[in-house]
């Protein structure tokens, strides 16, 4: 064990966990990384490209190396940062990216082949032959260069989402964030404070400095207690704000149960969408390292992370062995002091500054640098070059401190471009970032504790003042105020490989090569080398790489510029982005009033938008859907059939000007419709194209019911509401949808009148009293209010009857019972389609947004006696001159099929675009005719009845001869529906 004394861990309790199958022990308060270090484990994984041994490098979400597969089975999650995994009893973790054992990875041969794997290797090598891309190259590359393995099983966990609204969102609960939250909370503002750590405090937990002469955790605890007690403050620990979106919306993931062995029935993670009037970004800073030869061995760490492990987790970074520190500023010395104070031997501090001064009792090598390292699976010694001399120093760990990079990522999310600050050698958040997001503390270069506390409080007060909320300044504790400045020393020159981006295996040499290959833009550099890609986002490498690039180009870093960042800042699981259900409840579905009745009849359902509609009702002995559909269609034409048509949109239109309003909505005349009658109506789009069709029933002088197609129920209502409110507000019209309110059942077939006669309450259904296209309010089944429409989609004598939706199920059952002797048959959407194709009625396939009233044969419906939406535009040359017309199509050989989607050509003509004469819109087998039929739009179709044409389906190599016919295959005179 390399556990030190002290720390913020609960030593009274012990937690058992395994890593690569070996059992270890840790304590509550540990992360997987701290527990591994405390157990003396340095080697935790293999690198992405070269399979180099890697160890824990950082102590937070910036970790590039210690990516593990966490948990097992269906819950196995690859690429999880060991530094962010809170230890729990029974935790199981596995190292990634090796073939064979971790300490003898067979693919480590890649490291020997590294000269071939330079920047751009993949782009240059795996180009030809093209056929190899997917089948050979990609699988091979994925196997060699992947990271963790997917679980390849359905995610067993539950995720949810939620919405928070606040005056001030504070991102980060370190010194600046806590000061901001206290300032805002005490001012009565509604505050959400989010921090990705499971414990509030940020760097205050990792440092040994006192606040008001007491341990910083005391102040943190008091602040947290005060904040949690405020009803206007919401504290979200384990919550990462990963992105800033439009209109002040911030995305955050709360890891509700990731620290539990099993979330059970609870939620694993919650996606919060936080609508904040303002936000303070107190995201802190990430330490950068200084690349030198072989700087990626296990044991080489960020110096600030070493302090965190020693102070917060009481874990010695170097398995108890001596530690060296390599720094270009005072920060590295803090590490040496803290480690020494905790009894960790410090072999030397190597400071690049010639004038550096030792701040304690340790060996200082001023003006020196670490130029190489040794140790196959873990650091054993470092080579120090100073004043022209080289020296090897034995050590088990090296802390590297190259200065701090403000965490500007969220401030970049609206294309805010970070600005180089030469004074602090860092990029600071620039102008043009998200509106209302104010950076404070270390993420804007105010990195000492005193600076961060003051800046957090000040920025919160200033921000709240914008909102008209007056906030006083809290009494802030006395805190350290050391300089965080670092010298501009970016990498140790040398010929060996020095890693810049550990996660993506990008070295200084790779950057030089990309420069040599003319990848001069930072955007090109990033993509050519893969630097800062994927989950890493360049947290520990980006600025260093830019500095190296600047050195190569001879430009300054400011001129070199930087890439910017997109959400998410840290990895977000797709499960939590879904935030809800998978499977059956993935999206809402709508059920018809007769759904349960149909299900009981073994109906097969089909999704129609959100609706589930009965597609057909198979009977015993029917083994193919065509058998069911043929039977249903014939039954309707011979007797009577029932179909739930509730899904068709219904819009209640009332008001003194309702008729005039509908005259303007519909292309045809509506205002002249008599009360008690129904009219077929056609709507056009504003551009003159046919839009939607349906019926319009007049129940009273000032009361209409408009029906729409199922698909356009919502859009038509929306358009009508737009017209009512915005186009013609002067008209007295009121609209409301009643689609769901009424169960509507089509009763179709020559025996439909006989059937309805048995359920109406003394209503006269005779042709004289209730003719074709009549409508009425009436009662049925002993007093139930209902509406009856004599309309037909099948061409047969037919009605649609509507009752309050709660009675739809019972009405359907009653009609079935009452019509048993009439051969009543339920039918589904498939039969509905067959019947309407046989009758030549247009539906969605014909009203596809590319066709006109004239093409549909409905040109005369566009009334010239009034204006309506789209009427003028329908007369423009481009539309009016279209010569394609809706026709019926019959195969010359009755054994052949008409295929929807096939294109129509004159016989013998070349089958190309120039000769394209139209297309088949709908097709089915007509049981009534005994062969396949279709509808289609054909050039001059109305002039070509009887002509034989060709329907070509080049995709499947089909070509069928069709005879052009009338679109009305059944009862073209319309006698059946009228008598």
């Amino acid at each position, binding site marked *: 064990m390399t556990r030190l004394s002290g720390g913020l861990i609960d030593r009274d309790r012990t937690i058992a966990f395994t890593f690569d199958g070996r059992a270890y022990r840790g304590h509550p308060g540990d992360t997987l990384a701290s527990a591994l270090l405390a157990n003396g484990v340095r080697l935790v994984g293999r690198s992405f490209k070269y399979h180099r041994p890697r160890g824990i490098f950082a102590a937070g979400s910036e970790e590039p190396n210690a990516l593990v597969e966490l948990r097992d089975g269906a819950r196995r999650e690859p690429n999880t940062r060991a530094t962010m995994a809170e230890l729990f009893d029974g935790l199981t973790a596995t190292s990634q990216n090796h073939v064979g054992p971790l300490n003898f990875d067979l693919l480590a041969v890649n490291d020997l082949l590294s000269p071939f794997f330079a920047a751009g290797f993949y782009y240059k090598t795996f180009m030809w032959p093209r056929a190899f891309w997917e089948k050979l190259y990609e699988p091979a590359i994925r196997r060699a260069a992947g990271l963790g393995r997917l679980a390849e099983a359905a995610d067993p966990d*539950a995720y*949810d*989402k*939620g*919405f*928070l*609204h606040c005056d001030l969102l504070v991102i980060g609960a370190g010194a600046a964030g806590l000061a901001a939250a206290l300032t805002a909370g005490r001012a009565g503002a*509604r505050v959400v404070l989010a921090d990705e750590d499971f414990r509030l405090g940020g760097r205050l937990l990792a440092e040994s400095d006192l606040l008001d002469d007491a341990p910083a955790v005391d102040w943190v605890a008091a602040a947290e207690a005060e904040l949690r007690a405020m009803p206007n403050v919401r504290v979200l620990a384990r919550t990462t704000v990963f992105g800033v979106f439009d209109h002040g919306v911030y995305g955050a993931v709360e890891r*509700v149960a990731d620290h539990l062995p099993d979330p*059970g*029935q*609870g*939620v694993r993670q919650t996606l919060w*969408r936080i*609508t904040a009037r303002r936000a303070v970004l107190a995201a802190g800073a990430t330490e950068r390292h200084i690349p030198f030869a072989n700087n990626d061995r296990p044991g080489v760490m960020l110096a600030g992370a070493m302090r965190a492990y020693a102070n917060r987790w009481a874990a010695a970074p170097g398995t108890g062995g001596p530690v060296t520190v390599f720094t270009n500023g005072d920060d590295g010395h803090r590490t040496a002091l803290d480690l020494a104070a905790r009894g960790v031997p410090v072999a030397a501090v190597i400071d690049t500054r010639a004038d550096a001064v030792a701040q304690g009792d340790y060996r200082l090598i001023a003006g020196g640098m670490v130029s190489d390292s040794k140790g196959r699976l873990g650091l054993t010694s470092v080579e120090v070059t100073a004043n022209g001399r080289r020296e090897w120093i034995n050590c088990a760990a090296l802390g590297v401190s190259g200065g701090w990079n403000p965490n500007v990522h969220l401030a970049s999310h609206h294309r805010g471009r970070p600005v180089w600050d030469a004074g602090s050698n860092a990029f600071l958040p620039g102008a043009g970032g998200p509106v209302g997001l104010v950076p404070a503390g270390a993420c804007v270069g105010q990195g000492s504790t005193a600076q961060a506390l003051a800046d957090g409080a000040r920025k919160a007060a200033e921000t709240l003042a914008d909102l008209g909320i007056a906030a006083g300044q809290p009494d802030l504790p006395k805190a350290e105020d050391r300089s965080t400045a670092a010298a501009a020393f970016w990498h140790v020159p040398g010929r060996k490989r020095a890693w810049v981006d550990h996660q993506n295996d990008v070295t200084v040499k790779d950057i030089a090569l990309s420069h040599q290959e003319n990848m001069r833009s930072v955007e090109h550099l990033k993509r050519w080398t893969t630097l800062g890609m994927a989950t890493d986002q360049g947290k520990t490498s980006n600025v260093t790489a830019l500095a190296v690039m600047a050195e190569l180009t001879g430009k300054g870093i400011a001129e070199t510029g930087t890439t910017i960042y997109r959400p998410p800042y840290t990895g977000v699981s797709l499960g939590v982005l879904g935030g*809800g*259900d998978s499977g059956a*409840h993935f*999206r*809402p*579905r*709508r*059920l*018809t*009033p007769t*759904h*349960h009745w149909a299900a009981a009849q073994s109906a097969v359902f089909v999704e129609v938008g*959100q*609706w589930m509609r009965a597609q057909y009702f198979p009977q015993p002995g029917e083994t193919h859907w065509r058998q069911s559909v043929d039977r249903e269609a014939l039954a309707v034409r011979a007797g009577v059939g029932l179909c739930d048509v*509730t899904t068709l949109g219904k819009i*209640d239109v*009332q*008001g*003194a000007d309702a008729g005039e309003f509908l005259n303007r909505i519909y292309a045809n005349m509506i205002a002249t419709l008599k009360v008690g009658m129904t009219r077929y109506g056609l709507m056009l789009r504003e551009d003159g194209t046919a839009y939607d069709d349906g019926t319009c029933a007049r129940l009273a002088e000032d009361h209409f019911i408009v029906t729409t197609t199922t698909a356009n129920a919502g859009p038509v209502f929306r358009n009508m509401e737009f017209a009512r409110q915005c186009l013609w507000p002067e008209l*007295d019209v*009121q609209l*409301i*949808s*009643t*689609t*769901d*309110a*009424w*169960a509507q059942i089509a009763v179709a077939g020559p025996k439909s009148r006989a059937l309805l006669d048995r359920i109406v309450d003394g209503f006269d259904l005779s042709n004289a009293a209730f003719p074709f296209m009549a409508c009425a309010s009436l*009662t*049925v*089944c*002993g*007093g*139930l*209010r209902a509406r009856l429409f004599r309309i037909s989609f099948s061409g047969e004598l037919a009605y649609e009857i509507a*009752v*309050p*939706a*709660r*009675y739809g*199920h*019972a*009405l359907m059952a*009653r009609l079935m019972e009452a019509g048993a002797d009439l051969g009543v048959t339920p039918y589904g959407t498939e039969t509905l389609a067959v019947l309407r194709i046989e009758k030549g009625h247009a539906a969605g396939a014909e009203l596809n947004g590319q066709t006109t009233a004239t093409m549909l044969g409905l040109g005369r419906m566009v009334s010239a006696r009034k204006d309506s939406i789209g009427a003028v535009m329908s007369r423009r040359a481009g539309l009016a001159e279209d010569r394609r017309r809706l026709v019926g199509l019959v195969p010359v050989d009755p054994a052949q099929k008409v295929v929807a989607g096939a294109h129509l050509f004159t016989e013998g003509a070349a089958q190309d675009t120039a000769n394209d004469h139209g297309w088949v819109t709908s097709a089915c087998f007509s049981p009534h005719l005994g062969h396949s039929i279709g509808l289609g739009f054909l050039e001059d179709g109305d002039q070509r009845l009887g002509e034989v044409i060709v329907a070509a389906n080049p995709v499947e190599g089909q070509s069928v001869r069709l005879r052009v016919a009338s679109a009305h295959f059944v009862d073209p005179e319309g006698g059946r529906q009228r008598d």
Partner: protein
Amino acid sequence: MTDLTAICALGATEPRRETFGALTLAERPDTALLSVALRRGAAQPAPLGLALPGPGAWAVGEGLAAFWTGPGQWMVEVPGKADTDVVATFLPNLPGCSLTEQTDGWTLFEFSAKSGATVGRLLERLVNLDTASLAPGRATRTAVEHMGVFVIRRAEAELAVWGTRSAAESLWHALSTTARRMETSGWAQQ
């Protein structure tokens, strides 16, 4: 009286009810719903003495309640009258208005808890609304899991959700799943 038997939106003849800790979710099939829209130039009526509420508000009177749905538009709730022709009943009380029966266009689910805090927790998981603005007596149109709804805070610890009847099953699933997770997480104890 018809001899047909009505079913609830969730498909059974009896309304569904489920309890999650201190949180109860119940289907309320017996409340009638009536849309009211003022015609041009008509004076705002006060049905059965109820002052129709302003934007975002819900008001309760004797045997009925109403919430605002748009300029000059309201929904009137009439408990116990779902099986009746509410248009005919209310026509004399709502002169100058277009009335449309909406009872079966919607389905009413109601949450009740012991404390307002639990309802607040529930709301922030269901709707993208500032929970603080949905105080008792407030009603608004919003969406739950991509489904359009009206939510009404009838009291600190009572929340009503009117959803599309055809989507009742999906809406119940969404509401009950959230409530169950709150129970599991220990957030539904009050």
